[in-house]
């Protein structure tokens, strides 16, 4: 390193700083120690650098800046906290309201529909029209009765004479409101759509479990969508017979 190179390097040198740790600067400083001309240049350079640093630090700080920063931050924090509290409170209120509405809805549904005859009627028809698997497939009504007995379904039912003569296809046990309902499937002779294992269904359940069900032994007819249902009570059992069509279509099985 020669004198000119040292000067270029020392342009970035500030006395009394960590600049001396820079290897190039350290080398240039060492050179200045043995070079009187470079040493004089360095002395002047250092004085100039110190002066400039001092001058820069004379940039006046506005009075109250620190206090302003702290107070504005405090105000901002307070506003943010208030906003967060408000948002949290609104969210909590919304959740509570949603829970209340959900509970009311559930209770009203439960209170109104659960165990009610209309619910039973709709659900049995829905079950008959949706794809299902029969638990036991047979044409033998006696075997059906035995199967239902073994599986704790209602068995002490009495079939109308016309239904006794109708071809059975099997049976299943369905659960409704925690109760077992015996379902016996028959075939009326019509062609069946895929997944349908019968086209005439008889559901038997204990009458005591179904609120507002007809007490009459003579059938009462009702349309449920495209289905016709006949409902009657006999011997403590509620019978619900369902098939597609109108009242005339179902009457011939009663």
């Amino acid at each position: 390193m020669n004198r000119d190179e040292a000067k270029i390097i020392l342009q970035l040198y500030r006395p009394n700083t960590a600049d001396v740790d820079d290897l190039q600067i350290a080398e240039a400083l060492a050179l200045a120690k043995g070079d009187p001309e470079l040493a004089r240049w360095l002395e002047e350079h250092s004085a100039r650098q110190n002066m400039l640093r001092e001058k820069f630090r004379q940039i006046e700080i506005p009075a109250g800046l620190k206090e302003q920063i702290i107070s504005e931050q405090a105000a901002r924090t307070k506003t943010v906290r208030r906003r967060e509290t408000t948002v949290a409170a609104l969210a909590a209120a919304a959740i509570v309201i949603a829970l209340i509405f959900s509970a009311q809805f559930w209770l009203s549904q439960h209170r109104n529909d659960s165990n009610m005859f209309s619910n039973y009627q709709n659900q049995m028809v829905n079950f008959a029209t949706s794809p299902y698997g029969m638990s036991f497939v047979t044409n033998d009504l006696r075997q059906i009765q035995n199967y239902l007995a073994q599986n704790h379904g209602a068995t002490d039912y009495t079939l109308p004479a016309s239904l006794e003569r109708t071809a059975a296809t099997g049976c299943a046990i369905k659960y409704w409101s925690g109760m077992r309902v015996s379902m016996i499937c028959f075939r009326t002779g019509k062609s069946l759509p895929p997944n349908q294992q019968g086209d005439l269904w008889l559901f038997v359940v204990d009458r005591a479990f179904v609120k507002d069900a007809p007490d009459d032994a003579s059938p009462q007819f009702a349309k449920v969508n495209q289905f016709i249902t006949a409902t009657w009570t006999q011997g403590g059992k509620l019978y619900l017979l369902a098939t597609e069509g109108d009242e005339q279509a179902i009457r011939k099985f009663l």
Partner: protein
Amino acid sequence: MAEGVDFEDIVARYYAPLYQFAFSLARDEPDACDLTQQTFCIWAAKGHQLRDASKVKTWLFTTLHREFLGSRRRQTRFPHVELEGATDELPVISPASVNRLDVTQLTGALAQLDEIYRAPVALFYLQDCSYNEIAEILDVPLGTVKSRLTRGLGRLHQLLSDKPNL
């Protein structure tokens, strides 16, 4: 916020050097106040992400510089002016001449520097930042810092030596 670092302590320790740096960049008191304020506002919001408490100073200066650059990008009234080639040797300006300068003249000369030289020069004189710290704050390599400082100091000294009363 970096562990064990209190907001008010940070403000008390750094608001003055940060303001001086902001002023040297913006050369306008309200703008410098805004930049300083905004830097601490960002610190309050994001300072907790800083795990190393020893990096607080660098973090604050980096943030202020970024804010300054961001605000400059939003203002189109400052055209970008390229500085002429590097000066190998500083123009001669005596310490006595420097002593006659007032802060306005000094910051005026600094303001005439191109933006890429202004920040390193300000950090160099104002904060005694090491070259590594300047590199970290400005997010440029160490070699670039030295090169910008050399050019920036050369230009600044030239501007100061051109002052008629010096």
